[in-house]
């Protein structure tokens, strides 16, 4: 149906920038100002009736040149900037960056710092997944879960706030370890949250998991098989939902993950429902890690002995962690000065977004919303 017999505007549809291709094909622009594109993503959809015949993601509306900024900041100065990439998982961003620089320096954070880092990062994973769950459900039309999710996320943010004073862009870690010692009651807060949270997840699942409409809206929608997922470089829960058991926490452990037991949930089909189930299970596993970690935080220093002025030896390093959305990698080139010569970030959302076209082809418009939601993108990270 690609013959453009009559390329013309339908009754002055200029207002939404829509043209008619043939009798049944239209181009529809979703975003950048659309309620469910999660920020300033713009999706150009070619529709054949109500079905998506092709799609194109247009990004860059939130580009701030983070990587370029890095070249003009010292290593420590750049650390807060990374929080602004995936701003709903700032702690994870910081962990990746700090560990990458530590690797470059050839040092390692002390054990205590590593465990605290693990706890905070896992809490951040829960928070990120909660935010995803809420908005995803909202996109599909379930109005209520989002508030429940934010209620629990609030608890996590409170822990962050008590720990470092910030809630969203925390800058929780420093190169070489931690700036702050944990506050009194940190363990109790974490334990209490984890214990309560078990029932809360059940509550969300009651609302959604076996809900006929929810299942109908998500099962079989946006299928991404394992081969495609790997070919597209997709990582994180999206990859695992396609049946690939790949988790950097297990594959190349960092922080203190090698000390804890946890499962890597996978599913087979790789549809939206599977990604939902995988993320739900991941939250349970994160809770499990937190509980194990908080039971046994070693004592000792929280900061490695590194100088005030960081001058890593010339060289390059790539370090990646399992961020909530997938593999978050930092590639840093040092020229021996106090400022990195080049920092390149491998953001999971950006790579995962590539799978959108594959998932959306043949879907209905209503599914597009579900599919965008299920990839779990943060435009701050995509555009950087």
């Amino acid at each position, binding site marked *: 149906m690609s013959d453009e017999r009559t390329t013309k505007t339908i009754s*002055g549809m200029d207002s939404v920038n829509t043209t008619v291709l043939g009798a049944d094909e239209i181009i529809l622009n979703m975003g950048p100002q659309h*309620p469910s594109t999660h920020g300033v993503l713009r999706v150009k959809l070619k529709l054949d009736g109500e079905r998506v015949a092709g799609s194109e993601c247009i990004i860059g509306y939130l580009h701030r040149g983070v990587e370029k900024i890095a070249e003009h900041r010292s290593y420590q100065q750049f650390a807060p900037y990374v929080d602004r990439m995936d701003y709903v998982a700032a702690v994870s961003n910081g962990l990746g960056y700090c560990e990458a620089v530590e690797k470059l320096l050839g040092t390692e954070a002390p054990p205590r710092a590593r465990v605290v880092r693990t706890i905070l990062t896992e809490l951040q994973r829960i928070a990120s997944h909660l935010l995803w769950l809420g908005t995803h459900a909202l996109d599909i039309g379930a109005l209520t879960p989002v508030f429940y999710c934010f209620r629990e996320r609030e608890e996590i943010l409170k822990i962050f706030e008590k720990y470092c004073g910030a809630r969203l862009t925390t800058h929780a870690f420093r190169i070489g370890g931690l700036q702050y010692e944990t506050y009194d009651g940190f363990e109790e807060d974490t334990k209490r949250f984890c214990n309560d949270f078990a029932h809360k997840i059940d509550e969300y699942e009651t609302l959604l998991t076996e809900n006929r*409409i929810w299942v*109908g*809206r998500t099962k*079989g929608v946006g299928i991404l098989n394992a081969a495609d997922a790997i070919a597209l470089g997709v990582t994180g829960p999206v990859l695992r939902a396609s049946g690939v058991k790949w988790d950097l926490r297990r594959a190349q452990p960092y922080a203190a993950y090698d000390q804890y037991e946890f499962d890597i949930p996978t599913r087979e089909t790789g549809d939206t429902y599977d990604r939902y189930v995988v993320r739900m299970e991941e939250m349970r596993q994160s809770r499990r890690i937190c509980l194990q970690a908080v039971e046994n935080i070693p004592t000792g220093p929280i900061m490695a002995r590194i100088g005030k002025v960081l001058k890593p030896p010339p060289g390059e390093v790539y370090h990646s962690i399992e961020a909530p959305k997938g593999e978050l990698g930092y590639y840093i080139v040092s020229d021996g000065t106090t400022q990195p010569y080049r920092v390149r970030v491998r953001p999971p959302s950006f790579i995962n977004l590539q799978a959108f076209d594959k998932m959306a082809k043949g879907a*209905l418009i209503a599914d597009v919303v579900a599919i965008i939601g299920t990839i779990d993108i943060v435009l701050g990270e995509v555009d950087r």
Partner: protein
Amino acid sequence: MGHLIPPSIMPFVLPVLYAVVIVAVLPLLAGYIVLMERKVMADMQARLGPMRVGPHGLLQPIADAVKLLLKEDIIPDKADRLMFWFAPLVSVTMALLAYSALAIGPAFQIADLNIGLLFILAISSLGIYGIVLGGWASNSHYSLLGALRSAAQLVSYETAAGLGLISVLLLAGSLSMKDIVQAQLDQGVWFGFSVPFGFFIYLVGSIAETNRAPFDLPEAESELVAGYMTEYSGFRWSLYFLAEYANMIIVAGIATTLFLGGWLRPGARYHEHIPGTGIEWLDALPALLTLGVALYSLKLAPTQPVKIQKIVMVLVAVLCLGVACVLAGALFAPPAVMQGIHGAFWFMAKVFAYIYAFLWIRFTFPRYRFDQLMRLGWRFLIPLALVNVIGVGVAIVLRQQFAWGPIVSLIPTTLATLGVAMLLAKDDAPVAEAQTAAGE
């Protein structure tokens, strides 16, 4: 007063009065239903909802209304101005017109038509023009898609809902609202209990007809922004809003009349009197309930943070007290007056209960996809409704031929319909075969 009015005009006086009252009160009512919705939503979502304007946000609807009326009225450049102007009027007019046949209590009715129910259905089916023309006139893709979806949805579910109503019409043998209520009184059972599946089908159908979640596709925010209302703002938008909520009240009114016994009090055939008086126990219930609300408000009043809020709270308490007094006073009035007033109370209570169910459903379920919605309508509800209607026909034969009781005769029907429903539900497995087929 009677001598001031010429006799030829006399029959029109009361209806006109009612009409004026309805037109005047309905926007306010709609506003407060919105408030109720927000409060219910907040309660379900573990938060407070509007709290700023008035005590517990009681004045919020008025603030909203003022805001809407003061907003700039924007007509898109390439819109069809005539239709853009005309469409919301159609919507709201048809919604209000439908009230003319609705019986709010035995006394409050503008016209008791012998085809009352059909009239309401006919008029409310015209409301669709407001949506379709508005969506078309906006000259926006989202609007047009929303309008077309709305039209398709309305036409589909009107069929199902209508078939759900027919089961009641068979039982009542009349189209007049009053007669239907009377039939429920005569048979001693609300039709909602004797034909539960008719009620269920109408419930689902009415949610879909009013474009409420989970059938709110025409205005699904995440897909079509605001559907047919996307380009509307200010007063015109509020007209659509009003129409939507007015329609909610109408479907609730229909459901109340047909399935929940209309203005009948619970236990309408139970006539135990309070000793020593001619007052029935149950008739005292409305007054006591409102009195309770009044006292509760009064108790809350001192806790309000601002003085003006305290005053408003007290005013609310006084209002409720006044209503309680009216309700109590009616006990001593002639039976016709008493039944009129109490009937209106019970009717409104049931309507709000029904609307509460709407809200409850809305905040619990995700949204259907359009093809799933159509499938539900055509492949589940309509076959089920047909089975139900046939079943009710059989039940009536049973009742007439074998003198089975009004409830007993319907039990086989209900069971049979239940079986069919389970069969259909199994057939309607929620698997989106759609994409897997087309995605290859």
